[in-house]
């Protein structure tokens, strides 16, 4: 792999002491959310101001009012139902100064009093409904960003909008993608970095080049865009030659989950999606043959961009010539340090977890999932061993299943235990790879390149698990198995708790140290979205979790597992908020 700017100074060797202990006298800002405030999120433990909780990307709340010692007193404080919640809630609530903000399908946003659930304002984007009805990965929204008095959201029809945090009125909107022509829009959360909003487009199965955008956070003016398919012409990132026969025109890529930011190197880290078609018939000679000969940069990669210019500063392609749709679109970039060395941890859909230095050079790769055979292994330096490249025809027992050994929702890192909690999926697939005519017109929709079906893994039943591991080595401390893979994000807290929203509708609280289940509550429908914790204006700790069913992975559950999934509504989503009674 190529890594640029290897000579850049990292903070390796500099001992940085991170304070994990949280004072009971929580800081309170009650002011504007800014880059500096998000950068110093440790000082605002009562807030959850960005998708991944902070730039550290831990999905960890240091709040400790709710703990393993009093969890039996955790009850519902209030609930809020999202109108027209087709495919449920899949976003991540945010909170600042006691106000909770969350988004839902059809680009709706609510601001609610975090203690009472009282509606402060409601925003609904005007959309081209005809376009939305044609989109496959729609109408869900997976999150928002806060900053400079605005709530930022990407829309299904290709806009970035800024909504006034106080009033819910539209401040500005900028058209970034011609979605009426290209089908794709935005479903992922934006990320505020300095004076820019970073947002990645959908891509993957569509013939477009999956750009990631930088937009002036105050004016809405587009500052830059980076094409994840082939890079930018006229710059050293131009990698169209890695797409033989000009196959970059069939596209894919994109960055449909919010990435991370490392203030130490001033790099935005983003995970990119797969090339199209998903399944290539090239066989082992993928450099020269098949639908898209070559490595297909910068798909299925992690890329480090300059937030000011969008210039590509570093990258690592996790799966060169991804022939299995095991992309790198997972948005988690955990910023960690140990023994004076700094790391980035990023999970890949294929079931491996990559450990990088802060410039994207692999330091280790470990398996979260047992049933993997699309490669025999991935070496610690990131080299793939024993690729299972596919040819036209039938293939039995490819593992994992297309939905991935790791799905897009986030795990959680608890700095008190030093453990990384993450969902893994054990499932496989049979497929028939087909040579398909290159799809160049966007409205032709998907570009898969195979028929397929799900099958159990070689070692037993289809299942999922939540495990607690050393994030750098993968050493497992404990694991809890689930009969169906959980699909929602996880949350760890300063109260020694790990919250696991499961697909059947149970919100479970585990002892973060031992994995022992301490509490559970049935929310009545499956979880496929976010969970976070914050302080209300009454200074009480709340835990907010999203419900609602209909995500791309969960949609297979009704035919696969039967009840309760075959009776879940596909048009309901509720935000359920808990506190101590």
């Amino acid at each position, binding site marked *: 792999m190529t890594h640029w700017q290897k000579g850049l100074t990292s903070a390796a060797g500099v001992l940085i002491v991170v304070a994990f202990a949280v004072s009971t006298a929580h800081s309170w800002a009650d002011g504007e959310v800014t880059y500096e405030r998000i950068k110093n999120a440790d000082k605002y433990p009562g807030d959850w101001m960005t998708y991944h909780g902070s730039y550290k990307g831990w999905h960890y709340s240091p709040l400790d009012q709710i703990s393993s010692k009093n969890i039996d007193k955790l009850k519902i404080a209030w609930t809020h139902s999202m109108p027209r919640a087709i495919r449920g809630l899949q976003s991540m609530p945010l909170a600042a100064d006691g106000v909770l903000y969350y988004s839902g399908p059809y680009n709706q946003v609510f601001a609610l009093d975090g203690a009472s659930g009282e509606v402060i304002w409601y925003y609904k984007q005007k959309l081209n409904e005809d376009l939305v009805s*044609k989109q496959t990965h729609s109408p869900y929204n997976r999150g928002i960003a806060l900053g400079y008095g605005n709530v930022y959201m990407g829309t299904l029809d290709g806009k970035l909008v800024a909504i006034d945090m106080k009033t819910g009125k539209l401040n500005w909107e900028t058209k970034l993608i011609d979605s009426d022509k290209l089908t794709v829009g935005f479903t992922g959360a934006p990320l505020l970095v300095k004076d820019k909003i970073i947002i990645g487009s959908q891509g993957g199965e569509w013939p477009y080049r999956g750009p990631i955008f930088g937009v002036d956070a105050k004016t809405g003016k587009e500052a830059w865009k980076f094409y994840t398919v082939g890079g930018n012409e006229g710059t050293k990132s131009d990698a169209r030659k890695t797409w033989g026969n000009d196959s970059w025109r069939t596209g894919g890529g994109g960055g449909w989950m919010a990435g991370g930011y490392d203030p130490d190197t001033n790099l935005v880290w983003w995970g990119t999606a797969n090339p199209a078609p998903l399944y290539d018939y090239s066989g082992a000679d993928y450099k020269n043959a098949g639908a898209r000969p070559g490595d297909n940069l910068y798909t299925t990669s992690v890329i480090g961009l300059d937030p000011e210019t969008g210039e590509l500063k570093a990258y690592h392609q996790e799966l060169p010539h991804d022939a299995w749709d095991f992309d790198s679109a997972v948005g988690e970039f955990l910023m960690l340090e140990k023994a004076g060395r700094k790391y980035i941890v990023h999970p890949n859909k294929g079931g491996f977890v990559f450990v990088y230095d802060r410039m994207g050079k692999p330091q280790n790769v470990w398996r979260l999932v047992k049933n993997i055979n699309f490669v025999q292994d991935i070496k610690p330096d990131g080299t793939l061993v024993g690729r299972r490249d596919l040819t036209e025809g039938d293939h039995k027992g490819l593992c994992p299943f297309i939905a991935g050994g790791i799905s897009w929702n986030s795990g959680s890192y608890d700095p008190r235990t030093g453990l990384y909690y993450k969902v893994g999926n054990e499932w496989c697939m049979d497929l028939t790879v087909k040579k398909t005519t290159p799809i160049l017109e966007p409205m032709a929709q998907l570009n898969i390149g195979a028929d397929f079906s*799900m099958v159990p893994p070689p070692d037993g039943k289809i299942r999922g698990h939540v495990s607690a591991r050393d994030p750098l080595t993968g050493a497992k401390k404990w694991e809890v198995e689930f009969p169906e893979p959980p699909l929602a994000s996880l949350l760890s807290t300063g109260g020694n708790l790990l919250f696991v929203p499961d697909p059947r509708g149970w919100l479970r609280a585990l002892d973060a140290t031992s994995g022992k289940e301490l509490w559970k509550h049935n929310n009545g429908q499956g979880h496929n979205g976010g969970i976070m914790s914050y302080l209300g204006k009454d200074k009480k700790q709340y835990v907010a979790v999203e419900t609602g069913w209909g995500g791309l992975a969960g949609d297979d559950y009704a035919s696969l597992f039967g009840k309760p999934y075959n009776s879940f509504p596909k048009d309901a989503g509720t935000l359920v908020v808990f506190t101590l009674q």
Partner: protein
Amino acid sequence: MIALQRVIPGTLLAVRMQVPATVAQPSDKQGETSTAKPRDPAQIFATTCGWCHHKGGREAGKGPQLMGTSASDGEIIYRIKMGKAGYMPAFGTAFSEEEITALVSYIRTLKPR
């Protein structure tokens, strides 16, 4: 018919030869009437429908099994064209009338494999 996916002369031939020709420029003429040959329904399943209707429509996935469906031709055509919010996108402008008719025929002839 809206030009939504053009079959590129030469590309198809190249695919058969396993040496793809250079992929043609993406069209900037969307909305034009197409004279393209309708795509084979099995190809459409491999690119699009199979995402939800597994094994080429022989098994349920995100969507129902289509082999042996009790739905009428009219119901199938309506669902393909109009979709259903939360369940299936509308493909009424993605596929031509001829292709939709061919998809119905394909579904009617599905056998286990």
